[in-house]
């Protein structure tokens, strides 16, 4: 019975081939009778030639059916290399090309262009990956690697022989962009896009923009006041005519593709109307003007997350005086709906305690994700006593405690007794560079520098204070960073090279004993200090995973968003038209974040300025004479690109809406009648590859 199935399959394939012939004209001008494939094998210097007998592969290729020409070259991707392809196509009258070289994810576009230059349809090109997936992973077994390369070429040739002409579908790009997250990265990206003349939606889940940077007191190594350099930008964002700012809003759903993303946003019930919203509701001169009359009357008191819970806020609140937009927010989880605020607000009628979430639909051409980061829950490292001992704080809490606009007006005090600490230990790598499975394996990258800055800040503010910096390595890699290190050392900070083993509290004095080894001194130390600041590791912001999945963006093992290429495409993602900026792609300091934001913005503006993008034409096609109209594929399609239509004579067949089809092939993989033709990955083409591998071998 097995064999029977096999035969059945073979038959099906043959039919499919015929179908293709009958179908081909639709796509290609002149379907050639006999395939003539040219094979070009790349040495890539010694990258490939070092572990594969390139000449042997070429000689082998010449013996393959349909191969009209084969040649090797040092670097096929080079200009002369590409010329060879063009020349061969013309002189040898090739119908298709195969390049055996690196990964198609690297050079497929290059060789498609070369193939087109030679006068063939670019989709007549097929690539055999003999570098990433062969030469580099079988470096010590030249024989097997060479065999594998021959098979790869054979498989590629088999497909190339059946490839058709295809024309990429060109779609117009919506001239608007979406930026998710309004920290410094998102703000910068939005400003750049807006200044480039692009209508930009900037979406922030919190009630105000500014992100983590607005929580910082000063910034290294220049020591600019963070708020001072940030607020102007925040104001610009608030004012920019091209930016449509939507705070207290989350992304709810995403459909479509580059050029035409259909995004659904959830405007969370804020309980407060902006002046515009009020006007829209016909409340003349109404809406929230940030006067703050509502706040004092509110009876509910809660910790303010912006102040790391060290300062109270009401159930109707703003995070801090410089918020943008200056608009109060009702925390409906704690609001008791007493209505006092409504009365206080009076004629402005800004407060609506019955407000509900609201869904907003947008169409955008490109997207920038700037989702930011959270602090690693360092209490999980029990040995450092965070949340067990009052005077152990995190670096972000320290930022608020040292900040003039913070809960203590910038006077650093010990949480336990309000005293000014005279000896402060800064614990670096608090949860970073940790392979125990509790902390994070990576370097959080900016802790070293802000801890140096913290040391400077207390030296500046507290006469006679001694900062002890407990470090493994000081990573001062940026411009003027090493100089900053020099300066802080000069100012009197004490550097102790040893990772902190554990911290114990003196119950009587609430002082802390920091245990470590001074590895330079080769002695264990018991360092009694008044306060400990943990430079806690960073991790992706809480809802990063949910959001990235909405946009089909992958992540690396540690949860940070995965860039399209770590070196050559650091802002792109695997989803065309979606770009990343800032720490959500991996820990980075403010300069790097802003730089990447500008990169992402410019990358996101390109398709919009061009006005159209070409989509790879990997669409599904219905082979109507085979379609039984069962409609199973219709339910399978995740993009509802398929539908059943009635043809003359009442025959129901499936029809593809190409604009919606993304070419995943889920329908083609399922169709019981083999009635779906997946362009460029058609059943006969794939089956030919399988046959070529298993039955076409010389061995």
């Amino acid at each position: 019975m097995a064999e029977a199935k096999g035969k059945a399959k073979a038959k099906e394939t043959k039919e499919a081939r015929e179908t293709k012939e009958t179908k081909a004209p639709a796509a290609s001008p002149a379907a050639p009778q006999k395939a003539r494939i040219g094979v070009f094998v790349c040495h890539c210097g010694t990258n490939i030639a070092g572990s594969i007998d390139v000449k042997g592969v070429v000689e082998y290729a010449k013996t393959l059916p349909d191969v009209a020409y084969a040649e090797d070259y040092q670097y096929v991707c080079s200009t002369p290399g590409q010329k060879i392809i063009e020349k061969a196509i013309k002189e040898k009258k090739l119908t298709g090309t195969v390049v055996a070289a690196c990964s198609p994810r690297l050079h497929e576009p290059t060789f498609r262009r070369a193939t087109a230059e030679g006068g063939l349809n670019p989709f007549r090109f097929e690539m055999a990956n003999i570098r990433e997936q062969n030469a580099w992973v079988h470096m010590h077994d030249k024989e097997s690697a060479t065999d594998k390369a021959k098979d790869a070429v054979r498989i590629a040739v088999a497909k190339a022989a059946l490839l058709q002409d295809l024309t990429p579908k060109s779609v117009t790009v919506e001239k608007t962009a979406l930026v998710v997250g309004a920290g410094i990265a998102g703000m910068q990206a939005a400003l750049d896009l807006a200044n480039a003349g692009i209508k930009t939606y900037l979406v922030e889940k919190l009630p105000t923009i500014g992100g983590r940077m607005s929580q910082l007191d000063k910034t290294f190594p220049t020591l600019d006041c963070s708020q001072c350099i940030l607020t102007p930008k925040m104001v610009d964002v608030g004012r920019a005519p091209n930016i449509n700012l939507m705070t207290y809003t989350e992304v709810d759903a995403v459909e479509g593709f580059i050029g035409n993303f259909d995004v659904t946003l959830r405007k969370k019930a804020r309980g407060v109307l902006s002046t515009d919203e009020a006007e829209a509701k016909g409340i003349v001169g109404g809406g929230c003007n940030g006067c703050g009359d509502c706040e004092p009357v509110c009876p509910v008191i809660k910790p303010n997350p912006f102040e790391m819970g060290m300062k109270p806020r009401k159930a109707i609140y703003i995070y801090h005086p410089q918020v943008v937009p200056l608009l109060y927010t009702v925390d409906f989880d704690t609001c008791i709906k007493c209505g006092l605020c409504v009365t206080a607000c009076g004629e402005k009628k800004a407060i609506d305690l019955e407000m509900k979430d609201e869904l907003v639909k947008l169409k955008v051409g490109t997207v920038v994700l700037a989702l930011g980061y959270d602090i690693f829950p360092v209490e999980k490292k029990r040995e450092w006593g965070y949340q067990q001992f009052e005077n152990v704080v995190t670096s972000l809490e320290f930022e608020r405690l040292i900040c003039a606009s913070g809960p203590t007006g910038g006077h650093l005090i010990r949480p336990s007794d309000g005293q000014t600490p005279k000896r402060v230990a800064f614990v670096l790598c608090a949860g970073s560079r940790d392979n125990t499975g509790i902390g994070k394996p990576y370097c959080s990258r900016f802790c070293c520098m802000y801890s140096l800055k913290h040391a400077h800040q207390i030296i500046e503010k507290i006469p006679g204070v001694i900062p002890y910096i407990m470090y493994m390595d000081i990573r001062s890699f940026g411009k003027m960073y090493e100089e900053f290190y020099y300066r802080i050392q000069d100012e009197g900070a004490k550097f102790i090279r040893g990772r902190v083993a554990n911290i114990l509290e003196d119950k009587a004095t609430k002082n802390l004993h920091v245990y470590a080894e001074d590895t330079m001194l080769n002695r264990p130390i018991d360092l009694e200090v008044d306060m400990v600041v943990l430079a806690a590791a960073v991790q992706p912001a809480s809802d990063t995973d949910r959001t990235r999945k909405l946009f089909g963006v992958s992540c690396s093992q540690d949860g940070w968003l995965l860039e399209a290429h770590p070196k050559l495409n650091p802002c792109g993602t695997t989803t065309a038209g979606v770009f990343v900026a800032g720490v959500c792609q991996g820990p980075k300091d403010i300069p790097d974040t802003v730089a990447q934001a500008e990169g992402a913005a410019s990358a996101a503006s390109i398709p919009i300025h061009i006005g159209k993008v070409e989509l790879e034409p990997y669409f599904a096609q219905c082979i109507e004479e085979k379609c039984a109209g069962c409609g199973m594929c219709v339910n399978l399609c995740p993009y509802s690109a398929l539908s059943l239509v009635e043809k003359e004579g009442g025959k129901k067949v499936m029809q593809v809406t190409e604009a919606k089809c993304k070419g995943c092939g889920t329908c083609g993989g399922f169709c019981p009648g083999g009635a779906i033709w997946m362009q460029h990955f058609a059943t006969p083409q794939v089956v030919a590859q399988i046959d070529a591998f298993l039955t076409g071998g010389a061995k």
Partner: protein
Amino acid sequence: MAAPDGWKPKILGIVCNWCSYAGADLAGSARTQYPPDIRIVRLMCTGRVDPLFIMKAFMDGADGVLVSGCHFGDCHYLEGNYKAAKRMFLLKSVLKDLGIEDKRLRMTFVSASEGAKWAKVVEDVVKTINTLGPSPIAAFSK
């Protein structure tokens, strides 16, 4: 069934373009060495994998087939990998009926950042097939 001397397993790998193929590339850039007994066919998504592809491979005498896609929830096309996984699960029972050990078909999930995992997966698959020996169909079709 023990492997005859000099026998090398023929293993077909069908991988999705976005996760597993990228993961395999990463293994390459990292120079992570693994056994050379697998040949790759790239599709855009494992959802495209027609069970008949795999039947065809076994009829052609493949000793093993590896289908590898994105992790659940990470599929570039939302849910192609779920559908593929379901199909592979059903297909395994069919294979059993045909007297083909279902261990010869394996579905794995390797993300674009898991180069080392890809190498490990191929190692495992090759190990499994080596212990199973040549496919009964291969012997039968000769």
